[in-house]
């Protein structure tokens, strides 16, 4: 009887064996592996990689906890009542609601997935996905602090980001195809109790998003080490190129929206509109976020949604910057 139990248990720990073997290899080969990372470029790349993952980590955990709470404790009927039934109206409501929840972009991806699984119209959930990291109170306050004496920058950020989120929601409503989007299913995660559901969704979401966070962090680290930032300065004087340059930098840097205002403020050789573009694009689309979206909603969705978001965000930042700054 005990031997049957053992046979039965073996396949369940197959993955564990991989981890144990990996740990052994690592312990035995530590000197050799660490030695391979001695060149300054490798070390700098590893530092940047770890720093992106570590910086995003608390926000990602916050996001999966929120999304698990939505899945376990908020009944689907709540959203049916809270949001207008017509998706075209639900988009702006969800976009504005995003402002109330202080999350980083890594947090909003699993939360938006949870909202869709709860029956919220995808267009509205996507408006939330984009607006929540861009215009929540923490982000606006940090923008105010980073640009002292320039409150118009806060207003410009709010307007350009909200406009981008809503336009993207409506674009999805008009042109989006359901088959592009993989709505994360929660059914198999339902537990006996709400607490069980909470735990299973949290683990599921963290494992899904975490791997893609690593991919995004790796890409950003490689670009960080390979592409010197000095070439950006060449573009600073051209009004159009400078906006595109900082929008592109936001995509590559993949920093959290709570802190990006300080980075934008330090890029003061660029025009205010270019700085605005950096802050509007960054929370909505960057390498890490693209990887997270691909992991949560499917690659077919991400390759369409991400570039469109970039274009709309740059246009909105340009328009609002031209008007206000």
């Amino acid at each position, binding site marked *: 009887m005990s031997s049957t139990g053992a046979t039965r248990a073996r396949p369940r720990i197959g993955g564990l064996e991989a981890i144990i073997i990996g740990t052994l290899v690592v312990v035995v080969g530590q000197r050799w592996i660490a030695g391979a990372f001695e060149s300054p470029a490798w070390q700098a790349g590893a530092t940047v990689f770890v720093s992106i993952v570590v910086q995003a*980590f608390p926000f990602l955990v916050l996001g999966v906890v929120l999304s698990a709470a939505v899945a376990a404790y908020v009944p689907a009927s709540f959203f049916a009542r809270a949001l207008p039934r017509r998706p075209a109206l639900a988009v702006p409501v969800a976009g504005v609601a995003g402002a109330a929840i202080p999350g980083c972009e890594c947090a909003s991806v699993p939360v938006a997935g949870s909202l869709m699984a709860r029956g919220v119209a995808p267009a509205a959930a996507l408006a939330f996905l984009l607006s929540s990291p861009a215009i929540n109170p923490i982000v606006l306050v940090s923008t105010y602090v980073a640009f002292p004496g320039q409150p118009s920058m806060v207003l410009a950020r709010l307007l350009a980001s909200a406009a981008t989120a809503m336009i993207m929601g409506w674009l999805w409503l008009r042109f989006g195809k359901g088959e592009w989007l993989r709505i994360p299913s929660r059914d198999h995660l339902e537990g006996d109790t709400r607490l069980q559901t909470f735990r299973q969704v949290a683990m599921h979401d963290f494992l899904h998003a975490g791997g893609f966070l690593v991919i995004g962090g790796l890409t950003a680290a490689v670009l960080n080490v390979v592409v010197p930032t000095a070439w950006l300065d060449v573009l600073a004087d051209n009004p159009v190129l400078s906006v595109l340059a900082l929008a592109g930098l936001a995509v590559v840097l993949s920093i959290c929206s709570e802190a990006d205002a300080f980075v934008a403020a330090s890029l003061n050789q660029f025009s205010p509109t270019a700085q605005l573009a950096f802050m509007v694009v960054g929370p909505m689309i960057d390498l890490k976020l693209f990887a997270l979206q691909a992991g949560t909603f499917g690659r077919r969705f991400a390759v369409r949604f991400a570039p469109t978001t970039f274009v709309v965000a740059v246009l909105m930042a340009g328009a609002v910057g031209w008007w206000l700054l």
Partner: protein
Amino acid sequence: MTREVGSVILILVGGAVLRISVTDVFLRYVKPDLRPWLIVSALVLLVLGAWGVFDVVREARDESDDEAAREGDAEHGHAAEEHAEGGHSGHHHAPGHVGPRTAWLLVLPVAAIFLVAPPALGAFTAERQGTTVAAPSSGLEDPFPPLPEGVTVEMAVSDYSARAVWDDGRTLAGRSVALTGFVSAAPDGGWYLTRLALSCCAADAYAVKVKVLGVDVRPQDDTWITVTGAWVPGGGTQSPDAIPWLQAASVAETLEPVQPYE
């Protein structure tokens, strides 16, 4: 990915983050304010992971009793997983799949933290960029108050640079100051006393550089030094990429500070 593997990965990631954030190692990667958030979120993952392992062990025990009673035969490898994937057949609802294969990538940062323990960024990063002297915030009434009393004033490199560049060194004139930073190469073959500053994390580190005059022997790149000396005009003002000068009275090697960035 099965639930036990997922749980172990959660524990590994949570453990790695906890380990760097209870020590000062995390300061190489992010700003100090992030510490409480790192600790709390690491604990959340550890609890989730431990809970998962606990459940798996308990269910495996229950199940092996059940199964033994029911059929006593289960030699094919996938029986357990198929059974689990059915999910609702028994009194438990263990999903066979909790994560995609990409979740394995989460072992990379864990390996990087425990194995490579990447050091704080240094000369390599600094030499690939110019200097960035942040202009004083226009909202402040007096961005450059007089330096504190004392014979020698220890200053942040960014503070020294800002005073030298944006205030034409007014508050620095005639004072003895001590700056701590690492050595990075200058394009003209000389060297700078350099400190990196973060806005958010090491991914956006920018360099602040000071040219040190009056030192005959060039210290090695990436050596941490404290230079005591006095401000002398030169290197340009009123520009974020000006590199101010410092006339050294003495140079002492020092250890890397606990907080490597400013």
